[in-house]
Each structure stands twice: as C-alpha cells, then as structure tokens.
C-alpha cells in the first residue's frame, strides 16, 4: 500500500470517543486497528478477502478488475473492510467524508463485537493474518519448485471443490475440544491449543459418510505431498471464511443497528444529520427483487428489541437461519412487506407469488440453511470395489446447475484418480452423473463400465 495508513489526529480522537460510547452501550471487542487506505487499495484488499497478503492467483486479479471497474464507473463503492483477526484490522477509505468515517468506525466496532462473541466465529483462527501470509509463502515455494502452470492448475482444481464443506464441523469439533479432556491432555503434552484443534479438524473427516469432502480429499486423495499441502491450505481458508457466509445478515444487521444507535446518540454533529440519514438509508435500501442483508438484519434486531429479547444473547448464539427462525413471523413479514417471488412460466416474468408469512419464512430458511450451499455428502469411497467415489446431493427442491456440476465432477474425478458419481435430482426425477475425468455420463443409475 502506498502512503501513510495511520489515522489523522481528529479521526483518532473520534475513534477513541466512539469506542468509549460503544463500550458503554455494552459492546465488547478486542483491539481494533484502524488504517486509512485509498479507494483503489481497498478494492485490492477486497479482492484478497480483506487480507493484504495472500497467495498469488489470477482469480484475485480478476476480482480486483471487476471491483475497480465498478469504482471507476461509479457503480460501486466500498466504505470499509474489517477482518476477523486479533487485533481486528479495519481499513477505512480515504475518500470517505468525516461523517462517513464516524459511521464506518461505529459499524466496524459492531462487527468486531460480533466476531468476538458470535459462537460460529469461535473456532476461527484469530491469527489468520499470519496464516494467510504463511500460505502465500508455501504456495510461492511450490511455484518455485514445480512451476507456475502446474501449481496454478492444481490450485484451480482444488478451488473448484472449496464449497464441499460441512458448515457445522468446526463448531462441533471446537465444542468437543473445549468440553474437555483433549485440551487438558494437549496442554499437558506441551502442544498448543491450535495444534490440538487442527488434529481434531483433520482426523474426524477422513471416512465417509461425510460432508467434509474437501477434508476427506486433503487426507486421502492420491496426490503428491506438495499438492496435499495446497488442498489443506484451500480447506483451511474455506473454513475460515465459512462463518461469514452463515452470519452475513446478522453480522451486517448488528453492525448497522449499532452504527445507527451510536451516531444518533450524540456522535453526529447537527450539520451531519441529513448526510447520515442519506448514507444510512442508502446502505439499508432494498429493491423488490433483491433482499438487502443490512436491511433484513437491522429490522430483525429492532424487532427483537421491541419484543424485549436480550440482543446480546441473540448475537451470540444464532446464525442467519436460526435467527430468522426465531424472529420472522406473520407480523414481521407484513411490516417489512416481504414476499415470495418466482418466475411465471407463462409470461416468463418474475413476479410476486405469495405474501403468506409461512411461505416467505420457509423460503428464507431454505436459502440460508447450510451456508447457502447445496448439501452434498460423500457416501462411499470404494464404489463397486474399484475405489470410486459416490456423492449424494440432498435435494431440497433446488436443482444443481447441471453443466457446472458436470465440469466440477470431471475435475474431482481427475483429482481422485478414479471415477466419481453423484446422485441428484432434476425436479422430481433422480439423476446420476458419472465422470471418469474425461467424459460425463448421465442416467437414472450410476454408470457402470462394461467389464
């Protein structure tokens, strides 16, 4: 990053003031390191998922290109970025106005509190900054040894599989570790808490049936040692980012709830009120076909407050799905004018299908469950005695995008070194897809080679 990154004095002063007010209101966060960056730099950081040091990859370049084009055309603008580390690094954009800086600082403190207390974030590594840098070093070393093309091709094939995860695995393992003996034993043996946790994460996932397919592959795929290392890196980063997928609405809602509360509670100068209202309503605006997580989140917390619920407990124990389940009811759906939309087969238009609360809530829960990913399980790793993998898609009414699924399956089969099958459904009909790495076959049964 070019130039100085520390806050100018008057903003540092504001930061201290806002932190004090936030703590008085009940927020609890670790150290937050605010840094100033240029609009271009923040796009680079966003392309890297918030981390200044990542492994080299063309995909980051692609994301950056997209973000930066959005900035140049004035279509999109990032105000801040904050990452879940200790201390939490928050990047503020230099072009923000003073009011906007105050707003995003309060917003960031909301996120920092959420990271610290929400249960889904408990298993995450707070020293991820170092780990990301370490991953970068390892991958660069692999490039030195095996060539950019080889490493890039393998990374791509690993990233294709980076959503074959078990969203509940980290927390399950974390609780197991916390619950007891392992921790004490580990510490007694001189191993760090992290090392024990790592072992727990690794060992549990090596046998089907499992949803942690990436974990299974990282341990069992017949690949070279350096490739295994890349698989582990991809898996570690995927699990690190997973809680953010699962709590996006809550996290943004919580941060927006608090920036609004803190700024209107005396931090705003009278001359800034209109600008604040404009900025805040822009961030929480929703268009009919597009549900804004900031908006849905803040409304859920406000509703919870009206009902006299303990907000701090809610932000600790829930993820998006369970929070929606707790808060959304007939009254909430009506008040927020939520509806279900769908494609009208006759006209080809997207239109309002239903305003009934039960249908709306059902759909929301469907979208939010399992981290928004298709639920895919590895059920067999030795199909027909030939070492072939069998995957099952737990179909919930939403079909897979079949051509992408076929490409993914091909890639998986090449990695595994044997045929791979997946059972899914197209509407109500069972579909099997099989690949031997080169071709794809679909049918009502898994494809069997003629022997």
């Amino acid at each position, binding site marked *: *990053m*070019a130039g100085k990154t520390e806050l100018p004095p008057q903003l540092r002063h504001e930061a201290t003031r806002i932190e004090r007010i936030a703590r008085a209101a009940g927020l609890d966060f670790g150290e937050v390191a605010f840094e100033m960056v240029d609009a*271009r*730099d923040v796009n680079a950081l966003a*392309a*890297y998922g918030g981390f*200044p*040091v990542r492994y*080299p*990859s*063309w*995909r*980051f*370049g*692609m994301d*950056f290109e997209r973000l930066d084009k959005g900035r140049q055309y004035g279509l999109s603008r990032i105000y801040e970025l904050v990452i879940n580390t200790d201390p939490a690094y928050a990047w503020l954009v230099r072009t923000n106005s003073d009011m906007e800086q105050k707003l995003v600082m309060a917003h960031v403190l909301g996120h920092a509190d959420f990271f610290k207390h929400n249960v889904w974030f408990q298993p995450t590594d707070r020293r991820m900054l170092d780990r990301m840098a370490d991953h970068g070093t390892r991958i660069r070393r692999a490039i030195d040894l095996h060539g950019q093309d080889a490493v890039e091709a393998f990374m791509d094939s690993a990233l*294709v*599989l980076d*959503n*074959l995860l078990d969203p509940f695995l980290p927390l399950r393992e974390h609780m197991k570790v916390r619950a007891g003996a392992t921790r004490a034993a580990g510490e007694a043996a001189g191993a760090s808490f992290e090392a024990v946790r790592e072992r727990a994460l690794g060992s549990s996932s090596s046998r089907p049936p499992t949803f942690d397919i990436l974990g299974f592959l990282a341990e069992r795929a017949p690949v070279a040692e350096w490739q295994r290392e890349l698989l582990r890196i991809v898996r570690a980063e995927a699990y690190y980012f997973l809680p953010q*997928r699962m709590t*996006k609405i809550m996290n943004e809602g919580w941060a927006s709830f608090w920036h609004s509360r803190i700024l209107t509670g005396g931090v705003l100068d009278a001359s800034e009120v209109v600008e604040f209202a404009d900025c805040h309503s822009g961030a929480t605006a*929703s268009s*009919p*076909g*597009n*549900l*804004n*997580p900031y908006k*849905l989140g803040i409304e859920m917390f406000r509703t919870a407050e009206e009902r006299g619920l303990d907000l701090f407990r809610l932000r600790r124990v829930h993820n998006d799905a369970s929070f929606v389940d707790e808060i959304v009811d007939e009254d909430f759906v009506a008040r927020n*004018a939520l*509806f*279900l*939309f*769908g*494609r*009208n087969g006759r006209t080809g*238009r*997207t*239109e*309002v299908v*239903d*305003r009934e609360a039960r249908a*709306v809530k059902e*759909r*929301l829960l*469907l*979208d939010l469950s399992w*981290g*928004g*990913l298709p639920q895919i399980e590895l059920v067999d790793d030795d199909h027909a005695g030939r070492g072939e993998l069998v995957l099952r*898609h737990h179909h919930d*009414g939403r*079909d*897979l*995008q079949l051509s*992408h*699924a076929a490409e*993914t399956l091909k*890639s998986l089969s090449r990695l595994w070194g044997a045929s791979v099958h997946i059972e899914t459904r197209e509407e109500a009909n069972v579909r099997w897809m099989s690949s031997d790495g080169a071709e794809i076959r679909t049918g009502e049964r898994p494809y069997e080679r003629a022997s």
Partner: protein
Amino acid sequence: MHRIERDRARFREIVRGRLRSDLRKYLSTSELLGRRGEHSVTIPIPQIELPRFHFGDNSKTGVGQGQGEKGQPVEGDAKDGEGAGGAGEEAGQHVLEVDVELEDLARMLGEELELPNIEPRGDKALVSDGGRYSGVRDTGPKSLRHFRRTFRNALRRTIAEGVFDPTAPEVIPMPEDERFRWKKRAPKPDSSAVIFHVMDVSGSMGREQKDVVRIKAFWIDTWLRSQYQNLEVVYIVHDAVAKIVDQQSFFSLRESGGTKISSAYELLLQLVRDKYRPEDWNLYPFHYSDGDNWSARDTEKCISILRDELLPRVNQFCYGQVKSAYGSGQFKKDLDTGLEGEEKLVTASVNDREGIAEAIRLFLGKGR
C-alpha cells in the same frame, strides 16, 4: 499496491491466452463488432470462472421486499439464485467482459495469420513534421519569449553590474537578455493512412454477405490501425451510382438495382486525386462485391481505371468477392485475367464466414 498488479497481470495473461486460442472463432462471428472503443475492444470471455456445485435455474424464486399484489411483476432484476444474500456468492452466471487494447488484438491477429508488418512505400518515405517547443535560443518572435529564462538572465546581469538592491528589487530586461523558445525538429516517419471500404449494395448483396463484409472490415481496420497512427476510413457504397456514406449506413444500407462498379472506381479516383493524394497518404482501397457487374463494357472500364490510374497510386488494391445466391462471380475472373501480373492487386473470394480469415491473410499478408 504492486502485489495485486501481479495477480491482475496474470489474469490478463490468461485472458489473452484464451482470446488467442479462440481468435479463429472471433474471426468468423460478428461478436466483437460494436464493442470497439477508441483504443480498446470489450470482449466477453465466457467460462473463465471456475465451475462449482451450485444451484441452477429452477431455484429462481426467492424472497423480496416491497409493495405489490400477487402476480405483479417484480421490478429490478432478481439476481440469479440470490434469495437472501446467501446463495448469490457463486456469481457463476454472468459473462466477464475484459478490455483488450486494439494493439494487442492486432498483434494476436498478426500472429494467428502470420501477417508481416507493413513496409514503407517506395523510397520516398513520407515524413511528417513532428517536434515540440523544447529548445531555447537567442532570437525569435516576442510571442515565443521564454519569460523565466529572460528574467533570470536580466537578474544575473543586474547583480553582476552591482546595481541590484534587494530592498527595492528592480530588474529591467535588455534585448541581449532575451531568450526564445524554439521547436526542436523531430522528423517522424509517415503515419497517415486511409482505408476505403467500397461495397456493392445492389439487390443481390444480402444480409449474410454484408455481415461477412462487416467482419472483414473490422479486422482490416484493427490491423491497419496498429500499423498507422493516423488512420482515416472512408465508406463508399455503390449500385449503379456510387456515394460516400457514414459507417452506420455503410453496414445497414440495402439498395437495390443494377451494378455499375466503374461508378465506384471513378469516385475513388476522384478522392485520390483531390483529397487523399498519394504523396500524403498511404492508400488502401478494399472493394467487396458479389462479382456481378452490369456489362462487360463496364468491367473493361474498371480494369483500365485500375491499371492506369488507381494501382500506380495506392499501396494495395484489394478485391473481396463474397459469394451470394445471385451473383455470377464473373468480376473476379475478369480482374484476374485482365490485370494478370499486377503486384498491387489482390483478389480473394469468400464463400462463407469460415473463409474470412483466409481472405484477410491474403489481403494483409504482403506487408504493403
């Protein structure tokens, strides 16, 4: 942040590689036309995103927010698969668009078709009068007086004479203090070229034929632009009479009627004599037709205009014959026999879109 620049450079390299391997495809489709800006082309690159297991089409329902009764269309596009912000992360649906510099594209074309760079015409290489006002000298017009230098000299002289008083500074420039800007000459090799796209728009040239012409014109423009800094393009259409039109009409006009090719050649000749003189311009006429001329007499006239007037003046004359259902295709044969041995004449026939690449190679392959 140079780290991201490296990743971005790698991404662009991959895009270029993709583009390079698909160039033949682009050479026969009109996909890139209309995507050209001043210096770059916006090219849609499908399939660069990694595939993943994600939800498909039938989940295009979701939860929205706003007013409206059952059955009312939802405004603003519902993002693919994006219900409540969770599932939208894949973003695998949309096609990525990248800007590629025209020069890059031309280089790829050059590699693909093995085109040589264009050699300067004849030995009287055209020289354009370049140069910038970056020099200083003692004489010159007042309007070019270099104030700072002049003042500095006057100040220096005043101090040397011992009459400078810091409390009441007064500096009066004398004529010998004056300095003037002057233009340092930097002769540049010639950089002006003009392309004439001449198209037969008689009744027999259909939509498909025009598309072929369009695609060919696009790539020829792209290539010549990379070879010349200053390129002008003149569009001429003709049936029985010829006229100059703008780019828009060139590609959309559909006249009908007879074909008198000599009308176009006469107009060309007039332009070359009056406006685009060969002393000042590199000239590249391209003529596209289905090869059906009005009469043998007119064809003879065309041949004589070409032989006596046009060919001596132009860098190269290209005739591209597009196959149509109605055209006889006689004109190309007549040119080939009537002007046999003329080095500056290149003729090619294009049967369909697949033939475009080969025709471009013929036209531009001589490096003239």
